[in-house]
């Protein structure tokens, strides 16, 4: 153990690192363009007969109702091409996935303050840097929503709330205040947009407050900043408990407007949380590899590994709790959600791959103590979890929008690469603008002696 002298570190966002990210971006843009071109050529078999044969009778019966009510309306308004819908879907899906990485960055920091955790004080700047994605995420979320609302969110169509339209939907009409209050059902979704703005606004406000105190602490060794951050974090956690659930209903669950699950807020949170933990761990691992973060050793990696391991199991627990109840109760309005995902291509293989990537592999690979302490195993498991939960979000969003026409190809992969490159750029760029750890953090000394 002994006493190690703390040497302040600055992360340098090197031209080589920038080049690698730009290559990732370039590959993403290339795949995106090729994928988009392929998708436009591919879009003519929209109502191919072959697809519906895969479906069980049950599902056909239940979508027939919606199909019957939708078809004339779409003809009346305008029919969006399949490829365009697919583009909107993948943009929205990737955006929601990366919103999670941003907000969980802040959530991680807040958890550490509220729990008065000492072990993490050397690596808190990495999740903090991830939080810089929040303003970008806000712009993307609100922009994409206005670009694609009618295509992604069925409930935005005004005819659903009009008794005389012939496509009046009693169930969705019953939910209308949740979207439109205090306005008129079918008009501008004031309540919904207000929530979006308030959530991002508050998240960003909390982020700025916590960051300001962390930066001030660097200049002046005073525990008051830590105490301030502890109470800000506690308030943030209260706000986040509500807002993360509501955001999950708003941005993901409302796509399948008829369906609902009381587990859904937790489900999206669990997916976001474990993905971001894997991302934090991976960034720490690569920083260690590049010779940074002398204050982080195998004991801290062990804790991060335990986090990824434990919350992979937590996610599975939530996944299973949601699945088992719906499976056992066997109510058609509920089971339709899983039948859609289990029996249709390409959702079917993703549905099962999801469980292998996000439960079986992390569970077995991270089980031993050594696996959590060594950079090499974390470098294998963290990408698996990050990719696995991308599939998870794909299957949460896509089947509800695309029904039988969903695709997983170059377009989706390209979009993910573009988002990842942008996210990494923002994260590493903000990381390079502050010290890599707070040298005046009151618990840094404790972190140096962390031993498990």
């Amino acid at each position, binding site marked *: 153990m002994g006493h190690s002298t703390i040497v302040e570190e600055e992360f340098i966002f090197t031209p080589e690192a920038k080049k690698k990210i730009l290559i990732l971006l370039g590959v993403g843009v290339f795949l995106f363009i090729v994928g988009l071109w392929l998708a436009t050529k591919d879009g003519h078999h929209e109502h191919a007969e072959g697809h519906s044969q895969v479906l069980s009778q049950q599902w056909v019966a239940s979508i027939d109702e919606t199909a019957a009510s939708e078809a004339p309306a779409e003809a009346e308004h305008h029919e969006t091409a399949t490829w365009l819908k697919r583009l909107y879907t993948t943009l929205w899906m990737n955006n929601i996935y990366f919103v999670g990485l941003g907000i969980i960055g802040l959530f991680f920091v807040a958890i550490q303050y509220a729990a008065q955790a000492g072990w993490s004080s050397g690596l808190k700047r990495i999740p903090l840097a991830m939080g810089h994605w929040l303003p970008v995420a806000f712009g993307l979320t609100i922009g994409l929503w206005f670009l694609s609302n009618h295509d992604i969110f069925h409930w935005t169509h005004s005819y659903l709330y009009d008794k005389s339209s012939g496509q009046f939907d009693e169930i969705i009409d019953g939910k209308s205040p949740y979207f439109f209050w205090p306005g008129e059902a079918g008009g501008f979704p004031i309540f919904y947009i207000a929530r979006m703005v308030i959530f991002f606004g508050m998240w960003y406000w909390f982020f700025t407050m916590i960051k300001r105190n962390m930066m001030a602490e660097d200049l002046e060794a005073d525990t008051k900043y830590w105490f301030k951050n502890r109470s800000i974090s506690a308030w943030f956690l209260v706000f986040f408990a509500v807002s993360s659930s509501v955001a999950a209903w708003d941005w993901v669950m409302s796509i399948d407007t008829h369906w609902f699950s009381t587990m859904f807020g937790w489900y999206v949170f669990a997916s976001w949380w474990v993905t971001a933990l894997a991302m934090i761990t991976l960034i720490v691992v690569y920083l260690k590899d590049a010779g940074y973060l002398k204050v982080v050793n195998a004991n801290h990696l062990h804790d991060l590994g335990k986090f990824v391991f434990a919350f992979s199991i937590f996610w599975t627990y939530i996944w299973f709790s949601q*699945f*088992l109840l719906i*499976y*056992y*109760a*066997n109510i058609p309005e509920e089971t339709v959600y899983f039948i859609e995902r289990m029996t249709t291509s390409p959702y079917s293989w993703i549905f099962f791959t999801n469980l292998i990537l996000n439960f079986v592999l992390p569970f077995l690979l991270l*089980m031993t*103590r050594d696996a959590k302490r060594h950079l090499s195993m974390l470098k294998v498991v963290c990408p698996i979890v990050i990719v696995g939960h991308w599939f998870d979000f794909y299957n949460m969003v896509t089947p509800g929008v695309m029904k039988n026409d969903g695709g997983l190809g170059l377009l989706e992969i390209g979009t993910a690469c573009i988002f990842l490159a942008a996210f990494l750029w923002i994260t590493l760029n903000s990381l390079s603008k502050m010290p890599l750890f707070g040298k005046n953090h009151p618990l840094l000394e404790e972190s140096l002696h962390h*031993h498990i």
Partner: protein
Amino acid sequence: MDADKHFVVGIFNDEDVLLEGIRKVRSSGVKIQEVYSPFPVHGIDEALGYKKSRLPIAAFMFGMTGTSLALLMQIWMLGYDWPMIIGGKNFASLPPFIPVTFELTVLLSALGMVGTFMIVSDMKPYKWPRQFDIRSTDDMHVMAIDLAANGGKSKDELKRLLSESGAVEVNEKSFE
């Protein structure tokens, strides 16, 4: 001399002195039987040169036993022995079996670990624990060295070694 019967016992009153003492005693080639401590001492397992525990492997094996037993039991009961229609599901369907499988996995791995630990640590039900010095339950660390495994040193040499290593008191203890 019989093994596991006659001991030299060193009493330590400070855990840092104890850790140094352990290192010193071991580096002179003497094998330490056991160290008793009223509270967990950080780094003592490394100082004593304990190898990595294989208890997790045992836990995994017991856990897998639980998983297989639970699945076999349920598939046999509900699939073959006494099939029942529940919610229109197949007789042997996986999802409803998961909670029981999980519980039995946890139960068997926990009980198996406790059992393994007790056997390995010599805490059998018929065996009364040996007390080298009652103060190891209060305010003293107690180091026991078996005279039969003392690295070729005499009793007096061992006593001197313990005093030089920081023991505040050195005793002898024999068991029948």
